[in-house]
């Protein structure tokens, strides 16, 4: 991954992480605030309900007291105490009184708990009123009670008072409905709604869940929350998801509404008094559910998320642009430096980078330039040293090569001078011997000089399709006699085995077979010279992807690393006798063919020379390895 991409990713990740952290913290804060606000609102409505409930209860008590103290009830009570048996004339009294006091429920019950008159169910006269405790143990205030009606049961807020005119009291039981009408009296803020579940049956009844308009829709979703209240009589909260959209959910706060357990009213009044007054023996009459819509919170959450994504996206875009700008200003010098480094590595030591700033990158560029200058200088010095070393080597070799034939020349001339001076009678003979030696040595000098001259004038390859395997065979034929005679003379003791591993169907390459013959000949010669005690000479050819390989291996004494490094230097040789030009010639031929040559050697194991030549015609290049 490039420096620019890394930088871009780092910058983008930083922006993204920052936005995410900030958004998360904002979201968390907002959510907590909302939850608190919802809770406060629910508590406020619950408090309002309790206040309204209490007020309505007081109102019911006041109305019932008014009825009980009224003339009608007093008269009825008086009639009952006088033994009046015809209660038929009272059958509609409760209905009339209820209408006057705007009560939904009103019953006149005698001391035997027999209904004399019922406003809510006029036909109930003469029936016992079982669901009401005698006034002696009835709650002083208003209380919730289930009331049976012709069309079903309902929930009401009741009060009981007695009209005591004589020994037999007449009980007045009045109340108001606790239904959607009651809910409509509550001041409910926007986004909130109130439901009332009338717990009239042992089992859950969805039609008993009321809102302002009557039975509420989706009651079954609220059933678990109501069940929780029924089981624990606590005030749980729950989230109701009406649809798959989270914004349609509501948080409901459930408030249990209890009333006296009237089934215990048949027991001893003394034991029940304290229980009822202390709130014990209460049973669940209803559940008030205060619901707050989660839509504002969800929408705000969505807004925060969308804003965060927008900011994040913008941040990433800014990061990309900033990164591009930064790269243009920061990474460009780095990239330039990297490119320059690659050029230097490729050999262009004269590479320079432009110093555009005075910061660290500028210093780096300047240092790079200094470094390349040093490299160039060092290379020049090295070249010069090598040239000097090569000239010195050449001079030494020349001196060495020339010294050998020059000494006999000098001795011969001195012998001739001495013979002339001291033995003129032998001068003739000495002259003939001397001149023969002089001519031989002069020829030797001419050969040496000719070889040097020949190396300096290596011809350009004359390329034509060449079968390398044929060249190998021709080289081996040249050395066949030498290898055979050597074998005979040394009785296999110093035998050099020749092995060839030539690739089948080796493709022809474009090469100069003569030069190639010459190079292989030099390599074979060196290999033979490296195995004076015998060994194995192996010549291989192989097909590579786009090249062919020719390798010549010997099992001689091997070369050191230093020797390997200097092998191809002209006039360098490890032989006592030699011009040191053989491998130089090989290298020159290989280079002229656009190939490569390498040497691998292990001391005491042997040496292998590998030549790689392109299968495609290559322009003339200088080979390096």
């Amino acid at each position, binding site marked *: 991954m490039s420096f620019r991409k890394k930088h871009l990713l780092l910058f983008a990740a930083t922006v993204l992480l920052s936005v995410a952290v900030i958004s998360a913290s904002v979201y968390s804060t907002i959510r907590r605030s909302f939850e608190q606000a919802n809770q406060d609102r629910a508590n406020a409505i619950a408090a309002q309900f309790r206040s309204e409930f209490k007020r309505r209860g007081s109102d019911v008590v006041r109305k019932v007291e008014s009825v009980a103290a009224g003339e009608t009830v007093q008269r009825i009570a008086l009639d009952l105490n006088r033994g009046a048996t*015809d*209660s*038929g*004339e009272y*059958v509609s009294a409760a209905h009339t009184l209820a209408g006057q006091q705007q009560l939904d429920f009103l019953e006149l019950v005698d001391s035997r708990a027999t209904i004399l008159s019922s406003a809510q*169910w*006029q*036909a*109930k*006269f*003469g*029936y016992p009123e079982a669901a009401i405790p005698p006034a002696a143990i009835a709650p002083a205030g208003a209380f919730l009670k289930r009331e049976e009606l*012709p*069309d079903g049961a309902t929930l009401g807020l009741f009060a009981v008072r007695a009209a005591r005119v004589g020994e037999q009291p007449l009980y007045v039981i009045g109340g108001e409905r606790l239904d959607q009408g009651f809910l409509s009296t509550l001041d409910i803020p926007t986004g909130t709604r109130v439901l009332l579940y009338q717990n009239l049956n042992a089992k859950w009844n969805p039609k008993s869940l009321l809102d302002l308009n009557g039975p509420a829709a989706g009651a079954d979703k609220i059933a678990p929350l109501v069940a929780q209240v029924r089981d624990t009589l606590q005030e749980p909260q729950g989230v109701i998801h009406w649809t798959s959209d989270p914004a349609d959910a509501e948080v409901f706060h459930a408030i249990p509404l209890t009333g006296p357990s009237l089934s215990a009213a048949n027991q001893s009044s003394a034991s029940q008094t304290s229980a009822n007054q202390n709130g014990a023996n209460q049973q669940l009459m209803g559940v008030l559910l205060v619901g707050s819509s989660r839509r504002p919170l969800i929408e705000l959450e969505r807004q925060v998320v969308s804003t965060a994504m927008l900011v994040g996206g913008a941040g990433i875009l800014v990061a990309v642009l900033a990164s591009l700008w930064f790269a243009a200003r920061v990474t460009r010098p780095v990239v330039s430096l990297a490119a320059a480094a690659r050029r230097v590595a490729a050999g262009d030591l004269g590479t320079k980078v432009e110093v555009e700033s005075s910061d660290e990158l500028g210093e780096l560029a300047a240092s790079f330039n200094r470094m390349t200058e040093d490299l160039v200088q060092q290379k020049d010095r090295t070249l010069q040293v090598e040239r000097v070393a090569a000239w010195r080597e050449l001079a030494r070799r020349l001196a060495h090569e020339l010294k050998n034939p020059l000494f006999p020349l000098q001795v011969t001339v001195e012998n001739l001078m001495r013979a002339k001076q001291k033995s003129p009678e032998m001068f003739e003979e000495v002259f003939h011997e001397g001149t023969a030696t002089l001519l031989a040595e002069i020829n030797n000098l001419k050969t040496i000089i000719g070889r040097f001259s020949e190396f300096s004038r290596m011809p350009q390859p004359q390329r034509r399709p060449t079968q390398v395997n044929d060249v190998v065979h021709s080289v081996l034929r040249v050395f066949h006699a030498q290898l055979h005679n050597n074998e005979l003379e040394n009785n296999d003791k110093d035998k050099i085995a020749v092995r060839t591993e030539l690739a089948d169907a080796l493709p022809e390459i474009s090469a100069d077979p003569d030069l190639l013959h010459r190079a292989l000949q030099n390599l074979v010669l060196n290999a033979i010279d490296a195995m004076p005690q015998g060994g194995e000479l192996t010549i291989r050819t192989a097909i590579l992807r786009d090249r062919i390989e020719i390798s010549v291996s010997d099992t001689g004494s091997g070369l050191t690393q230093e020797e390997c490094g200097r092998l191809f230097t002209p006039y360098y040789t490890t032989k006592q006798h030699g011009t040191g030009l053989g491998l130089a010639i090989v290298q020159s031929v290989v280079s002229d063919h656009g190939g490569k040559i390498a040497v691998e050697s292990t001391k005491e194991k042997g040496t292998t020379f590998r030549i790689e030549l392109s299968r495609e015609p290559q322009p003339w290049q200088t080979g390096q390895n």
Partner: protein
Amino acid sequence: MTLTSMIAFTNATGETRPHYGGTLRVMMQSAPNALDLPSNATPADYWDAAGILSLIGDTLVKLDAQSRPQPALAVAWQGDPSARHWQLTLRRGVKFSDGTAASPAAIVQILGAVHPKWNVRASSDSVSIDSETPMPSLLAELALPRNLVLKRNGNGNDNRVPIGTGPFLVAEWQPGKRLKLAANEESWAGRPFVDGVEIEFGKSLHDQALALELDKADVIEVAPQATNGSQRHGTSASLSLPVELLALVFSPNSKAQDPRLREALALAIERKPIQSVLLKGAGEPAASILPNWMTGYSAVFSAQANPQRARTVLAGSRQPALNLSFDPRDPQAQLIAERIALDARQVGITVQVSLSGAEDLRLVRAMLPSPDPATALVEAARQLGLQEPVFPAAPRGNSLDDLYQAERSLLDGYAVIPLFHLAVASAASARVRGWEPDRLREWSGAGLSLADLWLADSRLADRRTEDSRPADSRPYDPHSYDARPEAGAR
């Protein structure tokens, strides 16, 4: 409420000799749009219409409280043993109030229109009626208000004014509001004492009571229970014999097809509280269709509630909820229905009182328009939607046992659950005077009840006091029965 059953008790301190003159002011709850017997009417509307028409027209015969036929337009009658052929001799010289003769032909035409299945023929002075089926109760049938001899004027609209032979004729008719009757000077029964009758319709019982108190009405309707209390000075109230049946009737498609359910419901109903409280003591608890004064055997049918037995009958069975409907025109019906539903609930039967939806049973009032028990039973069965009671071929209704069996067959299976026999009541102002009947009142007297009334008002101009009415048109006095011509004899 029937005007014809209204009897005014004479004020002992007032004048006892009749006076002619004055206008009798009557008020009614009903508001008829036609002077005709309404179909599908409440009993109150029926009695009102019958009473009005009885002032205008006459039947061939009338019945007393003992169900004995008395002459009216017919003075004699004879039927063959098979009761398929009857011949009635008509009173001579009777005219309609428009002056036309109430000839046999005219009477035949009127009766033939009412009874297409009869073969009604006229002769010189009689009418013969033939039927393929025996008609042992023909005379009781002829006494019913639907057989009043009335003709209509020929303008063909619903406001046709009936023209009859009765003591009054229609002077002014405002449908649903007011009816003015004028005395028929040429009435065969003699001119009535009052010059006319003014009837105001659509007045509630409360308004009627106020009008009576304020001396703006002379004769009003009252609730039966109102006759139990004391009356204001000078006013008088009267209560008829039980002439209505309040019952529960199961509809043909009722969900209550299980006879156990019906029996349990019948056993669950506590009639006493309903009578004492809702009916204010009026009416008699009933378990039979016909009241005891008609048959004498109604005690055989027990009206006692037995919730325990009802639960036993229903034990283990699962019964559907029933829908109980009632006549919304009946002011007491809803409460009574709710009470019945409450009683049913106590034994485990769910009954919902409602006017909507398919009804399973209905609280109805049926009229018993004839003192003849067989005729009353047939009429009651028709109103209750029951099958026609089956009597022996001939003579129908003669045997009390036959009557009992016929009624028993209607009650077995609990197609109907009788609840109460109810009376109708009315009240009169202090200035109203009339004859003095005994406890067994004149039954459906055709106009004779109002025709026999007079007003004790000294301002009346006409001081005629002689009763110029024919002897046999005067109100029936059971104590003087032996002095009357034998009914049916020629």
